[in-house]
């Protein structure tokens, strides 16, 4: 029995009686943990655009699998992780210049549209929304099985990242010293790329391939603004991602006109904006209030 006096938000109290909300929260929790943790290192290692590129690969992979009649998740995870490993092996230590990256990934997206066209023309069973669903996510459309799988994969990604956190942090801060100390820098970097691929594919199911970048970058950048120490920042990044996810899902439930992926990304961006403006605000308040020492 739920107490009556809380009339202001009766809907919110019953939120979890809807299965689709429960599934959304289950999957969203796994995704937010994975993206928050992986994203922290992406910002630290300046690999945010790698995450962007991999989310494009997620789009093409999902639609290729659909076009050839497989489960979308097979293409989503398979292609994204394969591209991540390929980038790691090709890129060696350096990075390709932005013209090359831009070219390859514009073409990859073009290929994704091609598969989308094949999918919608060949299987004419009312799938015009397949493209938008992959691009912008469909978290409230998950069933129990895929929500559980998303949660398990998200937790697994988070656990592997945490296990790797120490050497990865060392390699990110000073690669040469880490290598001299016997950290297998190359392998750690490669495993981390695969983890970005997993996180991008995970996030693509919830907020969509185009918006997963916001979930990777915004909470992590906010955490790095707020906290200096790396492990505290890592935890804060995951916490902020979870806050954006749960808050966004709740907001979208309270105001059904807001699509969940918009609400999640809007909250994540707002968190970053607040973190970026906070020191400035503090300075202004400090100057207005007590006299400076």
């Amino acid at each position, binding site marked *: 029995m739920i107490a009556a006096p809380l009339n202001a938000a009766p809907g919110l109290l019953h939120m979890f009686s809807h299965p689709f909300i429960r599934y959304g929260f289950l999957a969203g929790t796994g995704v937010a943990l994975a993206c928050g943790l992986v994203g922290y290192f992406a910002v630290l290692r300046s690999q*945010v*655009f790698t995450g962007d590129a991999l989310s494009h690969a997620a789009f093409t992979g999902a639609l290729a699998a659909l076009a050839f009649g497989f489960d979308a998740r097979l293409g989503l995870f398979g292609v994204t992780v394969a591209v991540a490993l390929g980038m790691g092996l090709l890129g060696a230590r350096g990075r390709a210049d932005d013209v090359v990256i*831009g070219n390859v990934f514009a073409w990859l997206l*073009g290929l994704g549209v091609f598969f989308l066209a094949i999918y919608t023309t060949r299987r004419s069973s009312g799938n015009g929304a397949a493209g938008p669903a992959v691009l912008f996510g469909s978290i409230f459309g998950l069933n129990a099985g895929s929500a559980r799988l998303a949660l398990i994969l998200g937790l697994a990604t988070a656990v592997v990242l945490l296990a790797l956190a120490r050497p990865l942090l060392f390699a990110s801060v000073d690669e040469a010293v880490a290598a001299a100390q016997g950290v297998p820098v190359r392998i750690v970097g490669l495993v981390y790329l695969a983890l970005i691929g997993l996180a991008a594919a995970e996030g693509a199911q919830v907020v969509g391939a185009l918006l997963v*970048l916001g979930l990777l970058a915004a909470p992590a950048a906010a955490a790095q*603004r707020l906290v200096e120490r790396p492990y505290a920042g890592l935890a804060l990044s995951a916490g902020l991602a979870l806050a954006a996810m749960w808050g966004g899902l709740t907001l979208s439930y309270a105001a059904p006109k807001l699509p969940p992926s918009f609400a999640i990304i809007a909250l994540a961006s707002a968190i970053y904006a607040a973190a970026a403006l906070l020191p400035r605000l503090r300075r202004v308040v400090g100057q207005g209030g007590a006299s400076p020492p």
Partner: protein
Amino acid sequence: MPLADVGDLSWSWNIGADLQGLFAYHFMVNAFRAGTIVAIAAAVIGWFMVIRGESFVGHTLALVGFPGAAGATLLGVSATFGFFVFSIAAALIIALLPRGNSVRGFSEESAVVGTVQAAALASGFLFISLYHGFLNGVNALLFGSFLGVTDSQVLTLFVLGAAAVIILALTGRPLLFASIDGDVAAANGVPVRWLSSLFLVLLGVAAAEASQITGTLLVFALLVVPAATAQILTPHPLKSLALAVGLGLGITWAGLTAAYYSPYPVGFFITSFAFAAYLLVRIGQGHPWRRAFQHEAKQAPA
């Protein structure tokens, strides 16, 4: 009007008849007019953009156009209008932002760009879901469409594209100077800061123009690829500029033709042709991939 009216809509290798079939409809004539204008403006402005290393700024300006176009459709205004207003406004904002205080360095900057891109795309998605029954429009806005280009849209594209190219022609020499060596140019009295702000606005126009043909996600194909390919082929500025325009036109025309004679979207063909052209030229240069990586590795701080 059902397309079956023409009778024969398949490519027959009888080039004369095929070309006649291509221009049988007014919408296709308009598509070629718009494509030609866009290809020229995007190639010329993209040429400067590649020299200035601002490819991702161009990409971001195009992405910001997406919520503009979606919002314009929601309000019942032409999507073209939304593209231009948002892309140019975003260019002005970027131009006005203070720069140089890179205390946090590149890593935070790319995180900010990523956040802004995701927020822009999310807002576009919001507008689209508020406007029911527009799901097919999503694909057109993101991945391009050549259907339904109206006469007034062609006129808008022409006026803005021509204005941008003329302004660029007038400021081309100092801009090139400032792009290649900003410090020396500034010492010689070139207003570097002012020129780069002006160029950002022109880039906004070009990104909005390219978005109409390739969609917001695929602007790289018309904005970057022709210029990057041409600059590999020849170091001479004017020659590579002309070559970029030629490549842009070739890619656009071939893409529109292929899309007309097949069931697949124009964005796929334009990106594929552009990528193929770039790849061919790079392969002609020896082992370009490896060299590019080595070049980067050398430049990367130890």
